[in-house]
Every structure is written in structure tokens, then in C-alpha cells.
């Protein structure tokens, strides 16, 4: 399997074995970015099924399909952090949604109330979720050695999840 997400930057790597599915990452994300508590406008998501959970978050692909897909030039790479940043002035939101379907990991979301597109911007280089995760299940590191394996495992899970949702 090609590792689509191989990157030159520090990236959020989720250890699914450690994750306790407590949704604290979603809550701190929506609070940090939006000032309220609401998992449906979080940029990291825990999707639960009986006996299992999948954590969706931007994998910082080296060749980012979302940027390539966007016909409005709304998505670009932050050269410092590597994060995919969104220009809301240019973005057409849920009216377009091309990036949402292009992301192989299902890690780009739409705010159901406003139609805004939501994507993790790594909080400018200091992600709030890693500090609040009570299980230390989210790492923020370069995907090398063991961590590359961990990331690959997470990616597979995300891809499988996206396929499952589409049917």
C-alpha cells in the first residue's frame, strides 16, 4: 500500500489502541477554534461503532489531493507547519465539497449548520488536542520509525472507514 500521507512535517498520529473514545479531543478542538463545545464543528472526529472507533484527522499528505482538487484555490499549504489552510473568502463550502470527497481519509468536514468546510490547521503548530488527550493517544511528531508504522496503521483504518461509509 502506498503511504499517501508520508510528510516532511510533524503530524498528528493517532494510536487507536490507546484511544479511549472519550471525545475530549473533539470538545477541546471546537472550543479552541469556535469558542463553544460541539463535536459537529470539530476538526478531529471520533467515529464509533460497537467495539471499535476510528479517529479522523488530517494526515498532512505530501501530495495533498484536497489542494489539487480545489478549483477556487482556497486550500494551500502553510510552509512553516505543513498544515493545510483554508481561505474562507475563496471557499464555496458545502455547495462545492470537492475537497471533502477528494480526501482519501475522510478528514475534511462540513459544518452541518453553516456549510463551512472544516480542516485541522494544527492550531498554528501547537495542537490543543494532544495536550488534553487523557490517554496520550495523539502524538504530534515526524512520522519516522515506529511512528511511521503507527501512522500507516491509522491511515489504513481511515481509508477503510471512508470506504465503509460510502458502502
Amino acid at each position, binding site marked *: 500500500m502506498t503511504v499517501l500521507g508520508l510528510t516532511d512535517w510533524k503530524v498528528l498520529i493517532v494510536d487507536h489502541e490507546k484511544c*479511549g473514545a*472519550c471525545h475530549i479531543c473533539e470538545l477541546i478542538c*471546537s472550543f479552541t477554534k469556535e469558542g463553544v*463545545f460541539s463535536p*459537529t464543528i470539530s476538526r478531529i472526529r471520533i467515529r464509533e461503532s460497537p*467495539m471499535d472507533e476510528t479517529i479522523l484527522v488530517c494526515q498532512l499528505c505530501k501530495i495533498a489531493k484536497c489542494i489539487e482538487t480545489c478549483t477556487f484555490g482556497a486550500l494551500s499549504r502553510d510552509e512553516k507547519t505543513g498544515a493545510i489552510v483554508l481561505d474562507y473568502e475563496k471557499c464555496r463550502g458545502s455547495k462545492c465539497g470537492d475537497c471533502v470527497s477528494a480526501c482519501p481519509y475522510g478528514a475534511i468536514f462540513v459544518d452541518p449548520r453553516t456549510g463551512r468546510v472544516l480542516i485541522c490547521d494544527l492550531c498554528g503548530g501547537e495542537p490543543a488536542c494532544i495536550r488534553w488527550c487523557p490517554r496520550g493517544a495523539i502524538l504530534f511528531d515526524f512520522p519516522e520509525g515506529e511512528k511511521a508504522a503507527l501512522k500507516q496503521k491509522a491511515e489504513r483504518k481511515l481509508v477503510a472507514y471512508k470506504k465503509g461509509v460510502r458502502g
Partner: protein
Amino acid sequence: MNGWVKNILYVDLSRGKISKEDVPKRISEYIGGRGMNMRLLFDLTPPRVDPFSGLNPLIFGVGPLVGTLAPASCRFNVTTKSPFGYLGDSNCGGDWAATLKYAGYNHVVVLGRSDKPVYLLIDDENVELRDAGDLWGLDTWETQKLLCEEHGEDFRSVCIGPAGENLVRFACIKTGLKHAAGRTGTGAVMGSKRLKAIAVRGTGSVSVAYPEKFMEAVERAYGMINDLIEVRGYKSPVAGTYGYLWWLHDKNCKLGVMHHRYGSWEDAAKLDPIHYHRNYRIKIIGDFSCPVQCVPRFKVNERLYGEGPEYELVNSFGSMVGNPDLKSVLEACVYAEKMGLDGDSAGRVIAYAIELYEKGILTSEEVPFPLRWGDGEGVLELLRMIVYRRGIGNILAEGEALASKIIGRGAEKYALTMKGLELHEPLKSGYGHALAHSTSTRGPDHLRSSHHPEHSNTPEQCMRLLGDPTQADRYVSEGKERMVVFNEYTSAFIDSLGCCKFLSTWGSILEGMSLTPEIWAELYKYATGVEINGKALLEAGERVYNIERAFIVREGVRRQDDVPPEREFSEPYPTGKMKGFRLDRERYERLLSAYYELHGWDENGIPTESRLKKLGLGDLIEPLKRAGIELKNIDFGNGRDYITLLR
């Protein structure tokens, strides 16, 4: 609004009418969740109503902290008049509570009865009743799965299983694989309304009044929790509350064994949580917004898997029925989860049947096979008979108290129930313990109050923190009411806020084994903007507890209903570290009187006019009098000193 969200949802199943009301301003007097539920229950329920009639409301409520980052703020209360006769109220985790809040509702009040099975679909502001014909008969796991398939994976549901549909009196309401509003038969009331499920999607948010200060308070609370877990080994890393089995059994003699005959048990070693941990546990997960994380997930084989079990179910299907085989215990647990059966009551009712058979009161013509202790297969078969009300199961499905009356022939003598509900633990493991369980407004268990120093603290600790070393002595009765009352108010406010008792009442407040009322008051204050401190929060807890008491008094509870069953006074422990001990009636009655006095209730346990007025509950007086209850006007002085006794 901050903390709370906008609406209370009213659903009339008889007329198929749905309406919304704004949350009243006075909600802050009752905090929300359990507290506001109680106010609604008292106001909406006609006295002595038949619990299965359409006039009995079924009320779901979430507190102001639910859906925020406050630790373990994920819980809801279901409140109704119980099929056991008095207060039906149960608290439950999972992520349904937060979802309901994000949809914009603090409470859902269900009234009436539907002619055919229905479920309530709440998609943010769009609410409708749907036909549940194809869900009726399904178990709780299948029901939730189908609802997700039909409406989307973001929907979270509470539902009943076949036990609730068949009006098994101890049926519960379920969400997720294991979360249950377990005791007091709320699932049977839901079944009587033919309401199969409430499926909710919420895409809104919860905001707080002072975001920065709120987050500072949350960080302080998290700091305390880390300290509890890492320094004091608070959480059982092995298997959640199941890990407490030893604490209950060996040292404290309050593990119910074979219908509470014993308080400790030789075979407990075979149920050691370490076996579970090594053989079946996959990992431990956490409830919504909970940093403690005490939910173990297990898999025995492709067919037998799930979450939990809590200590209560291991107790019920293990020691209570004398069964030391872990695999069959897990099988019974999962069966109860799926069918929507309160495992706590179920294990006790089965144990009661085994004892009656042993005593010759139930004869071999009446039972399908010889009832024996330790028969895992037999337990499963009895569970099936209860759920589908077959044979003797039809009688046992009424619960121990009613079953004893139906069976008769002296069976009443062996029933261990209070306020219609089965005993949770043997009461003779300490006077404070006995008082806490016996006076509990909903029936005998540890979710209304507890007396932890008796089982967890040394005399030195109690001297230093309470100025009274005898609080640690379970054989002493004097002065035990203080801790019990304190914990009643703590659990009342924590349920009302929507957080978990694991972080309040259950950790002994001594030696900092739990979060203090002050930190909860801060979280509440900064979330809602209501000016409040720890003491005032405890007073709000007292207000809630008094509404509950007023409710059960109106339904007929008096002093004799706060006294343990005769067997706890006459049958000493035959084995264990407390061998030979039984409660002394005279001493218990003295303790009960002191407890009433501290509450400002009369000698019959009826709240006094003066105390109700002091608590701002003057408007309960008229309805109580109309129901023929005489309220006294005794001034007990400042009975609330206990608040200053504890840090």
C-alpha cells in the same frame, strides 16, 4: 443561554402532540438534570398514580455541565413514578445526554400512552413520532444499530429491549452497549407507553458564560483527577469498577453472596478481576468527556463480547447466585444488556427464587428445573423466562417484593426489599452504610448516599478531618448521619449538574479522594453565570433531596420504610471478618431519629413546613396537605452544620 440550552420538550403520546417550552428561569434553584426532573415529577404526577398509566410522566433530563469539557459531564437522569411504587430515578452515561443537549433540549417529558409502538425522532429542532412496528421485539443492540442505519451514524438512541416491552418491572433503559438507566424499572414505564426508543441528532453547541475562567477551573479539576489516578491509584486499572470486587468482599464484608446470606465469599477468588483482565479484556475506554475512563471492553469469542461489566453485574450473576464461573457470568451480563434488564434486580430476584426453593416454599412443580446455587446455565434460563414472562419467570418479573406476595406461603419473610426494591448490598456491614442505603429515596443502593469512612478511612484520618475518629468504625452508630446526609446532597448536586459520582460521592471526600464541592461550584458558576459557592451548591442538593422526599412521602413512605428488613437485625453474618455481627434495632432507630432531625424532618420522616420554607420549597406544602399529609412546624435550629464540618 449558557450552560443550559433553550428548551424543554413535551411529548404527549396519547394525542401524538409535540410541544416545546423555554427552560424556566427558576431552573437554577434545582440546577438541572436530576434536580429539575424532580421538580417536574412532583408537579406533573397526580398522587398515587398507577405507574403504567398515561398520567405517569417519563422525564429525561441533562444538567448544565453536560456536553462541556467538565470532567465526566455525560450523564442524564430518567425520572418517573417507579413500577415498584415510589420514586423511579436512574442516572446513565454514554453519549446520548450530550447529543440531546447539542440538539437543544435540557429535558424531554413524555406523557400519555401510544396505541401502537412508536419511537421519538429528534433531529435538532425537528421532532416527530415514528412507527416502531419493525423495531418492537428487537434487543437493545439491534434497535440502536437499525436506527443508525435508517437515520445516520450521528444518531444516538436510548431504547428498551424485550424486557421493557413485556413490562418486566425491573426493565431498564439502555444506550450504547452497556450504559443503562438501570434501577427502579424506568424501562417498564417506557414499555407501558409503547415508546421503543428516542433517537437524537444534535448539531448545535453548548456555550459557557465565562470561557476563560471555565477552562481554568476545568484544568484545575483535571489536575486533581490526575493526582487521584497517578498518585493515589484511584482508578482500578484492571477492569473499572469490577476491580473493586476485593475491596467489597474481603475487608468490608459487603459483597452480597447468595441472597445476602454472606458478606464475603471463598469462591470470590475465581472471579478475581485479574482473570478477566488476562483472558478477555481488550482495552479500557472512557465515557463522553471523561478523563478517568473506567469502561472495560471484552471479547470472549465472536459471539460473546461487550463492554463492562461493572462490579454490580459481576456481583449479581456471580456471588449473588453463588456462581464462580466468569464466562457464564459474562454471558448473563450480556444477555441482560441486550434484553434491557436491570441486572442488579435480576440477580437478586433469581437468588431469592433459589432460596425459596431451598426452603421448600417453591416446589419442584413450580420451577422448570431444580434451582441450585452456582448454576450458571440455570441463571441464564431463568433470565429468559423472566424477560418473556414464562412460567415462574412471570412471577419473578414482578420483582422480589411483589413476587413474595404472589407466592405467599411465608415467602414474604425471606424477601429482602425496601421501598419495593431489592437490597443492593447486605446492610449489616456497618451502621452508616445501613442508614445510607435504607433512607435512599429511590430504594436501597449506594447511588443516593454512602458512608465511605466506615470502609475506607482510618480513625486518625477521621479525627483529623472530621474531628471524630469513630466515623471510621462501622460498629458505631452515633453521629453516622452527618456523613450520610452530606453524601446525599453531594450526589444530588452532581447528578443535577450531569457529572459522574465517581468523581464526587464515591471517592471519599476525606484525604482528597474526590473533587470538592467548591470546584464543582466553580465549574457550575463559570458555565452558567449563576453566582454560587460550594456551600450553596450543597444547599441546592438539599433542596433536590427534599423534593424527592416530599414525593415519596406523598406516595406513602413513612419511618418504617427507612428501616432495614427484619433479617438484617436477626440473622448475624455466619462467616467472614464480621462473623456474628447483625444490626441492633434500638441503635438503628436512634440513628434514624438523629438523621431525621439533621434533615429537619419529623419523627415519621415527613419534611416540616419550616424546613421546606427555608429551602424555598414553600410551594410543596399545599400539594402535600391536599394529599392528606400533616406537616409539622418544628424549628430544628441550624441543622446544616454538617456542611462546615467537612472541608
